[in-house]
């Protein structure tokens, strides 16, 4: 593919069909069968979605939310929407009803493409989001309009003109202000990040896609790069089935978060410890299917020792770094890079400078801003286009980037999920029995530590103080995704240390008593 011809997602999907035609782009397990979608089918079916939207909305630009797991229908909805100049809003498939409605309203969505597991909440969505005019299920159903029906009933309609500077997607990301922010990515942003490196993959590659596709890391590096290089993407249908799917699809490449690499290594080591006569390399070949030439890790810190352990098995792990606001890649490692402590070299076209210890990045991949949030945009972007990443780090003389800490308070769990402590702390506001609360990560678990309003509790004769705290946390956990659930509780006898401006310090020298 001539990358100089590709300026928009429309160009990329059209050119992939031109270059790779009937070659298989996507493989999905359906029971004992495997459904395959070619590059041509992806293009043609996306154009059917385009016709559906054009007929429903008279050709005006619409915002369409998309919630579900990786599938041909998901990608057809994604490209059918974005390639015609409409805006796609990929949402976290773990969102609970309340957050889903909030994201739909704040993104001005008029269409929702949804996985059938959201059927039970549609009545609520219809009530709370009256601006949604079209509900489209990703799977076959006779209860709602659905993608398979659109593909059966609508002829493909060529995409209209779309400019590289047009908005392609809005992606919600956790923010330190507590409210998630909608990152606006243009066609030019996503295309720049797809084209910024060369020779990363080929038509011979088979990828097992295991990460959530609403994250731009998975979308750019699994989906868009495979469209560029003509690689085949195999869908991991459930986190429960990674082991089976590795053996079944025998991938050559896989994008992971460190937690996945750690667990697979632990399992291989357990097999080796039980049967030391079998070489680890043989075990690894068996676990990964025998064709794996490397892993790409991102989303969280990768322990260099784990990278070394994998390298000793002949499986290099290349660690990258980025953020949604940068589509996402700022740096990426090469599989043959010996430097395991760095988070890779800065990608082509991206400039990085260190300001007061913080990494700033500037590139054509950097977002337009946060949707309808000029204050947050001004905080993240300088007037001359530098993105303040909030991460602390440095660059060495060989252009390798290193991270030393996080300026922001975001909790980054080892599975790469970002959790804003303020967002959870806000859920404790207005409680008379509570004086102060702090949320942080401890041993990889989200922990809430409280200092109760003892006077209120005494006055009201409440003596089961731990119970009232636990019950409230249980209620909160019902309203948040599994990743954000509070797993550990602490109660303290003294109030938290504060700054001179009376803000609770996030680093406390004394921890409260563990109660759960």
């Amino acid at each position, binding site marked *: 593919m001539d990358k100089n011809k590709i300026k928009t997602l429309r160009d990329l999907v059209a050119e992939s069909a031109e270059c790779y035609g009937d070659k298989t782009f996507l493989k999905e397990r359906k029971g004992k069968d495997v459904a395959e979608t070619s590059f041509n089918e992806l293009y043609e079916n996306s154009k059917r979605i385009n016709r559906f939207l054009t007929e429903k909305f008279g050709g005006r630009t619409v915002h369409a939310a998309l919630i579900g797991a990786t599938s041909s229908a998901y990608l057809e909805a994604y490209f059918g929407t974005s390639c015609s100049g409409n805006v796609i809003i990929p949402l976290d498939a773990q969102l609970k009803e309340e957050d889903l409605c909030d994201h739909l309203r704040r993104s001005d969505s008029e269409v929702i493409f949804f996985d059938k*597991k959201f059927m039970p909440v549609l009545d609520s969505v219809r009530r709370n989001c009256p601006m949604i005019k079209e509900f489209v299920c990703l799977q076959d159903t006779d209860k709602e309009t659905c993608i398979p029906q659109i593909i059966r009933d609508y002829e493909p309609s060529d995409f209209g003109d779309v400019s590289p500077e047009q908005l392609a997607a809005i992606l919600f990301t956790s923010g330190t202000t507590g409210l998630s922010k909608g990152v606006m990515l243009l066609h030019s942003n996503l295309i720049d990040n797809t084209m910024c490196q060369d020779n990363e993959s080929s038509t011979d590659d088979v990828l097992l896609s295991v990460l959530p596709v609403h994250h731009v890391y998975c979308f750019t590096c699994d989906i868009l790069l495979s469209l560029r290089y003509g690689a085949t993407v195999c869908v991991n249908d*459930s*986190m*429960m*089935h*990674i*082991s*089976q799917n590795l053996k079944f699809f025998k991938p050559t490449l896989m994008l992971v978060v460190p*937690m*996945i690499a750690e*667990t697979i290594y*632990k*399992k291989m080591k*357990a*097999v080796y410890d039980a049967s030391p006569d079998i070489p680890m390399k043989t075990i690894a070949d068996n676990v990964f299917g025998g064709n794996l030439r490397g892993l790409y890790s991102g989303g969280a810190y990768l322990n260099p020792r784990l990278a070394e352990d994998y390298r000793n098995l002949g499986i290099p792990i290349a660690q990258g770094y980025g953020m949604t606001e940068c589509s996402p890649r700022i740096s990426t490692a090469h599989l043959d890079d010996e430097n395991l402590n760095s988070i890779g070299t800065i990608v082509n076209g991206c400039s990085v400078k260190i300001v007061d210890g913080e990494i700033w990045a500037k590139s054509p991949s950097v977002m337009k801003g946060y949707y309808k949030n000029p204050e947050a945009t001004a905080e993240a972007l300088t007037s001359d286009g530098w993105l303040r990443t909030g991460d602390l780090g440095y660059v060495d003389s060989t252009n390798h980037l290193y991270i030393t800490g996080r300026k922001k308070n975001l909790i980054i769990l*080892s*599975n790469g999920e970002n959790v804003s402590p303020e967002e959870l702390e806000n859920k404790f506001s207005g409680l008379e029995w509570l004086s102060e609360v702090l949320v942080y990560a401890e*041993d*990889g*678990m989200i922990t809430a530590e409280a200092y109760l309003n003892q006077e209120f509790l005494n006055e009201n004769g409440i003596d089961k103080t731990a119970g009232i705290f636990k019950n409230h946390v249980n209620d909160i956990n019902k309203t948040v995704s*599994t*990743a954000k659930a509070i*797993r*550990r509780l602490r109660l303290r006898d003294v109030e938290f240390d504060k700054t001179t401006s009376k803000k609770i310090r996030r680093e406390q020298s004394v921890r409260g008593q563990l109660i*759960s």
Partner: protein
Amino acid sequence: MLEQIKEMIMNYVDVEAEMITADARFIEDLHFNSYDFMSFLGEVEETFDIIVEEEDVLNIRTVGEAVAYIENLKA
């Protein structure tokens, strides 16, 4: 079945066998991470020839609940 499950659990987490009781919680007590746990359930599917539904995963919090879930599907 509890003994078989115990052996499987010890391939994922570094805990003493006596800690793996019916009341032990996978995440809080046995220190499974979310991916360990999903991977473990995948192995349960293969070992016991059952299908674990994604929507049931949140209801399997303790070793005892896992055993009961498997026994229910095998019954």
